[in-house]
């Protein structure tokens, strides 16, 4: 089953698709992301249906600080770019570069997460909590689920980077790096819709 194409092992180009396992993993991960899209869609649908039900609490217009959201967005966007650069380094079989680009990705992701936690704490001080209103419940579940995905992505990168120096770039590890990077792009993709639907549309009411 593990039909490793020798030539590709040597050059490192598209190593993630060199084995049947690698190809299966990438295919399956797309199927997983398709399912995740609908999962997030269900959360978006719930949010859109409940976003004006503030129960007398603060509204989106009162809460949302656009500058901070913009900074968070740029952070996550940049981290998506750096994870592409890491995969390019992997294709060039440059382990050190790959590790450092993934490191940058993690740092940016962690900053994004910190900003989100700071934002949540601010909101809670202003009386906007999970229990204060249906809007609050839907907001925290949607944005929180995205945040949980960011957290999981960071842990995933961490697990891979601990192993990377020892295991290097092989037909076994390449699909793993590739998938982690795909996942990160997907999390960034979802954020595009989060900042548009939750924050920008929330700001204009």
């Amino acid at each position: 089953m593990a039909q490793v194409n020798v030539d590709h092992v040597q050059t490192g180009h598209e190593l993630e698709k060199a084995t049947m396992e690698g190809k299966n993993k990438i295919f399956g991960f797309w199927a997983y992301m398709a399912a995740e899209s609908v999962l997030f869609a269900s959360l978006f649908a719930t949010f859109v249906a409940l976003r004006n039900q503030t129960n007398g609490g603060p509204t989106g217009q009162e809460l949302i600080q656009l500058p901070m959201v913009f900074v968070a967005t740029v952070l996550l966007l940049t981290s998506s770019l750096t994870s592409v650069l890491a995969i390019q380094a992997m294709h060039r079989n440059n382990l050190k570069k790959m590790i450092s680009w993934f490191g940058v990705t993690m740092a940016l992701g962690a900053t994004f997460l910190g900003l989100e936690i700071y934002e949540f704490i601010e909101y809670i001080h202003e009386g906007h909590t999970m229990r204060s209103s249906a809007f609050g419940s839907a907001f925290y579940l949607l944005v929180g689920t995205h945040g949980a995905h960011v957290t999981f992505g960071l842990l995933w990168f961490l697990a891979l980077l601990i192993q990377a120096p020892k295991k290097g770039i092989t037909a076994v590890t390449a699909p793993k790096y590739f998938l982690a990077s795909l996942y990160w792009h997907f999390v960034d993709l979802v954020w595009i819709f989060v900042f548009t639907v939750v924050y920008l549309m929330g700001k204009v009411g």
Partner: protein
Amino acid sequence: MSEHVPSIKKHGLMDWLTTVDHKKIAIMYLATGAIYLVIGGIFALLMRLQLAVPNNTLFVGSDFNQLLTMHGIVMIFFVATPVIFGFWNAIIPLQVGARDVAYPFLNALGFWLFFFGALLVNISWFFGGAPEGGWTIYAPLALSQYTGTGTDFLVLGLQLSGAGTIMNGINFLATIINMRAPGLSMLRLPMFTWTSIVVSVLILFAFPPLTIALFLIFFDRIFGTNFFNVAAGGDPVIYEHLFWIFGHPEVYILVLPAFGILSEILPVFSRKPLFGYHGMVIATSTIGLLGMMVWVHHMFTVGLGPIANSIFGIATSAIAVPTGIKVFTWIFTMWRGKIRFTTSMLYAASVIPNFVFAGVTGVMLALPPGDFQFHDTYFVVGHFHYVILGGIVASLIAAAYYWWPIIFNRQLNEKVGKINFWFYQIGFALTFLVQHWMGPLGMPRRVFTYEGGRGLDTINMISTIGAFLMSVSVLVIVLSIVHAWFKGKPTQSDPWDARTLEWSIKLPVPEYNFAQTPRVRARDAFWYEKMAGNKEMVPAEPLGEIHMPSPSILPFIMSVGFFIASFGFIFHLLPITLAGFAIAGVCMVIRSFKDDHGYHVNPNELSEGV
């Protein structure tokens, strides 16, 4: 690649707990499904006993509600679903000429998540009562003000088994798309495999909304959020939407494999190729697509307005067209064929009239004015039991008789099979046909009793008698299985003179399935070779060492971890929740850090055949 790891094989119970072999996982799915079939059947019998006579006091109020809820949940999620996954696991890799599924580890994880999810729901009986809010778990009835911890068990148990289901969908999609034997193009795939592609895609898009719907209930119950608390701005209709966005495709997730099974069995026992293969493929895909877009027909009486109701009514009726195409292709497949009425064929043939009946009552329900009359009456109960028992379960029993030799290397007794068939058909018709009259006569579903002297007494008694006849049928099957297991002799290969690739393998199926990957040269691949005078498939590769994945205990332990975490959530014990997640997390880390090199088997060294 050449080092030969002699034996990392486990024995006895450990073999079953650690296996990643799809054929063993298939047996575990089928066995679990069979056990829950008996449990769910007992719930049904108890309900029918309560309803046998008017004003009965056997199971009243909450007792009846618990039986009712658990009957629905067990039969849909823990019987129909695992039995279908059992056949997927047993048959699809063989039908596509693959040595394994795409992700053997994930496959095992999917099974154990399902297993512990089912266990979690069913042990709720011993922790303060089973869920009682109906299988749809509608808010606000499912909120903590109205129902007890049973609902928590249900919500979390379904999350676990739902995650397992999504894994299965991804796994089999990848297996079919990526791992087909050389020459097996998409339009040469057997219909069972084709329906599985569509079903896998439906699972991908239908189960996440269920996950979210259950999460909303879970958050409202455990963290006190306000999704369904109308006083704080919540809206229970959101739950109904999300549930039925899942719920309606779920019908097709269950019924399309049944259609696939029919399309395998009818050609074999008619000695004719399937009529209208392309029409069948198009019809299957169309049913899948339309099935995702008609969920509102379950919500006609919610009051979404005449426009919404009309659109969804028309869309639902449109599904009758591709379904009709399927019915006619089955009839034309049998037309002028040399039909052999084996038990399998009897069951398959019985599905056609029964399912047409279920389809017609389905169209009646799809029309909003009619639905306002039938909604929440026994007419609906009769309708969906005709779909499930007349269509799905009958097909699954047909599949069991048909594929038993491949799965267990035994044949089920044909004479006993016919007894079981007639008990099943007569019992089924008696139980559910009359329910179509109960509804219009005014009997609401889900209510534990009725008044005497309103024209409901006799038909309820008939229905109860029918239910007991059906349980005789189940008993006969169970005895037949036990007999085949202990007294049965190994089957000869290809006992039905069948057409598709899975029958080209010498029984019992070796753990690597195919010593040499076959080359597929036509649609009914094995039949083509038989007609060309070959006894076996033409190999596509020389004999050589075969790489196999190692068994692993991690899927089992990981699922135990999630099981423990669920307990922590239900009883609000944070340390237990964290401990459970820690167990699962450690398993994930081990899986990430420890490379699985697998082992190699050499078909030359092993004796082939028995």
